[in-house]
């Protein structure tokens, strides 16, 4: 059952089937439970029907006495059989194919679906291993492309194949052909070979080793590029979060009310809220436990999860905005978090949400490392100081060529505390926005990913000769907007940034499409720069 028939390579461009346990994992478990339940109940009756013995008093007995038992069993069994056949057929009909242009999935029995995702449009590849699927050695692969609910899901595949498959897809996508053979061979061999090498050859043994194996295969990324989070710090960061503050306030209010009040019955009203709150913490913890972010040859890989493990690989250049932020309560510990905007946009379910958290909690050193992974251009020597300045300092730091342009002094009328921190910098291939004194934020937007930018000015800002600069990126948790900037300064910045955005876009366009089949290009007008 668990030995897959799928060939080891996605190559050949032929249609492949999914893991045979797929129907079970996709809801077939319920079917099995029903079968089991029916069998357990009916078995005695069946025996009795032939041997002949009275007694009982449940539904089956009732049916039996009215003589409908045969029909009932026939109907139930028929339905079950239909279910099994349907599941089997849906598995048979669900095939996928990977060639050097696209990933295609065909599915459905009556209503056939054929979905195709172009490789050069892939925004990220996520691998999820739900706990039950891990028991079967299966995993789910999700290719996200830009657009609402636009993703191709390969559920489920053989767990040990998935990493290699992703590697191959990303290799194809980045137009480096798989002829570089040695590298993929090495990683794939490592992924597939390690269980066999260490564990016993039996099926159970292999499953156990797979379950106990570290979430991130140590051979996949150089260890110095890996950022991990200790569980202790994670727990601390959760305790010092705003949610905890809220819970404490509610608890204090409740205690005061109960102490002064008469009735305690209304406390039961808070039971659902309590359960919900506990669920929030549990979800947060399980999503962030065993978190790791690392640079792999295919892109930045983010992995997390204790029982249900997920990992997500972002090819280079798929990050639209980055925010480094610090909740107020984290300041004594100097902890920071990083989140990003990305184009893969999942609309269904929180479980399939693409990971936007790149660092749940980390020190300054971790932030430096992660930013280096996400935006290598930013970590160069002459812009590195900007990150630190953007995180903690305000005003200008003397002695550097590139620096934050601060808001003018008159901005204090609108931002009495944070006006000194407010500032922007154009550093190489990214725009940095710094803001917030109490909730410190540093937003970095790669110039090539800026979709558009705009300047806004309301009556208050006009009176003070200020305006607001906004960089529009794809939807996500990060918003890149900076108010109370000097008007003339931001006009110059507006110009400079829009020029940088155009230049970066043009540059990247060339490099990205270089290996793709030639497309008919219309003649360029002569006003091209």
């Amino acid at each position, binding site marked *: 059952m668990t030995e897959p028939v799928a060939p080891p390579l996605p190559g050949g461009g032929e249609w492949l089937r999914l893991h045979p346990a797929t129907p079970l994992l996709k809801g077939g478990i319920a079917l099995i439970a029903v079968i089991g339940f029916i069998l357990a109940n009916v078995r005695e009756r069946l025996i009795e029907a032939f041997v002949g013995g009275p007694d009982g008093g449940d539904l089956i007995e009732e049916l039996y006495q009215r003589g409908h038992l045969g029909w009932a069993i026939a109907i139930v069994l028929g339905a079950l059989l239909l279910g099994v056949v349907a599941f089997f057929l849906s598995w048979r009909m669900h095939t996928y194919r990977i060639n050097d242009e696209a990933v295609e999935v065909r599915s459905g029995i009556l209503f056939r679906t054929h979905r195709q995702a172009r490789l*050069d*449009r892939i*925004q990220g590849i996520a691998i999820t291993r739900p706990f039950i699927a891990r028991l079967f050695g299966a995993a789910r692969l999700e290719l996200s492309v*830009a657009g609402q609910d636009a993703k191709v899901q390969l559920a489920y595949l053989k767990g040990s194949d998935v990493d290699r498959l992703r590697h191959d897809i990303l290799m194809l996508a980045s137009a480096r052909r798989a002829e570089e053979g040695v590298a993929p061979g090495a990683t794939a061999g490592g992924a597939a070979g390690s269980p066999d090498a260490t564990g016993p050859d039996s099926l159970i043994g292999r499953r156990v080793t797979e379950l106990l194996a570290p979430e991130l295969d140590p051979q996949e990324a150089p260890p110095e590029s890996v950022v991990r989070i200790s569980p202790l710090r994670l727990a601390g960061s959760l305790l010092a979060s705003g949610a905890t503050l809220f819970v404490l306030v509610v608890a204090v209010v409740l205690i005061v009310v109960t102490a002064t009040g008469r009735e305690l019955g209304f406390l039961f009203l808070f039971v659902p809220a309590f359960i919900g709150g506990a669920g929030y913490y549990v979800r947060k913890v399980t999503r962030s436990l065993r978190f790791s972010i690392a640079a792999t040859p295919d892109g930045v890989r983010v992995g997390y999860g204790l029982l249900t493990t997920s990992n997500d690989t972002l090819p280079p250049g798929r990050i639209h905005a980055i925010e480094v932020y610090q909740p107020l309560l984290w300041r004594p510990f100097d902890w920071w978090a990083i989140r990003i905007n990305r*184009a893969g946009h999942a609309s269904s379910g929180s479980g399939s949400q693409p990971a936007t958290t790149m660092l749940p909690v980390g020190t300054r050193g971790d932030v430096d490392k992660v930013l280096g992974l996400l935006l290598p251009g930013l970590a160069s020597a002459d812009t590195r100081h900007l990150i630190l300045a953007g995180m903690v300092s305000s005003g200008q730091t003397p002695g550097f060529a590139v620096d934050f342009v601060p808001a003018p002094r008159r901005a204090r009328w609108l931002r009495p505390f944070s006006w000194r921190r407010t500032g922007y910098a154009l550093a190489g291939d990214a725009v940095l926005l710094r803001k917030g004194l109490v909730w410190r934020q540093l937003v970095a937007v790669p110039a*090539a990913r*800026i*979709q*558009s*930018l*705009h*300047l*806004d*000015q*309301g*009556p208050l800002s*006009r*009176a*003070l*000769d200020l*305006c607001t600069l*906004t960089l*529009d*990126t*794809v*939807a996500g948790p990060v918003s890149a907007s900076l108010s109370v900037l000097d*008007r003339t300064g931001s*006009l*110059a910045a*507006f*110009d400079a940034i*829009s*020029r940088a*955005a*155009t230049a970066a*876009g*043009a540059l*990247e*366009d060339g490099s*990205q*499409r270089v290996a793709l089949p030639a497309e008919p*290009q*219309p003649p*360029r*007008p002569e*006003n*091209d*720069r």
Partner: protein
Amino acid sequence: MTDHSNDAVPVDPARVRSKRVEVGGDWKRVSRKYIGVELVGVALFGLVAIGATLVFSLTRWFAQPFGWILVGAAVVTTLVMFAVAPRRVRSIGYQLRDDDLLFRRGIMFHRVVSVPYGRMQLIDINRGPVARFLGLAELRFVTAAAATGVTIPGLVDSDADALRDTLVSLAETRRAGL
């Protein structure tokens, strides 16, 4: 066409001395007929606002002096909107620069948007009932960011189609993958 220059020929010298966000260059205005569309919109708004407050006042739903104040406010708002409609339309402008589309609108809340041509995902052309009657169309430039919001209203039909074709061909030569 002046390209990316701050000190280009100003539209109006008095404005540049003001504290208004103003990008120089050769701004194209939308059709004057678009004022008609705006006026119809304002008239509809006025009809609803004044009518509703009046009905509520006459049927004594509102306490008496308060009700008439509301009616007065609705009337004044409508009149002010009528008065500024031409200026609001005049404030809408766009510029095709070498590498980006520049768009501006608003008097009190002014906004200037710059969209590099390569970021285009699609272009919509819409025609409302009044605009269609006046032979106008509205062009929407859509990027991957929902907040871009570049909607150029009040283009003469043929201009809108021509502008769309220009923008598409410009975007084609500077295409950037998402």
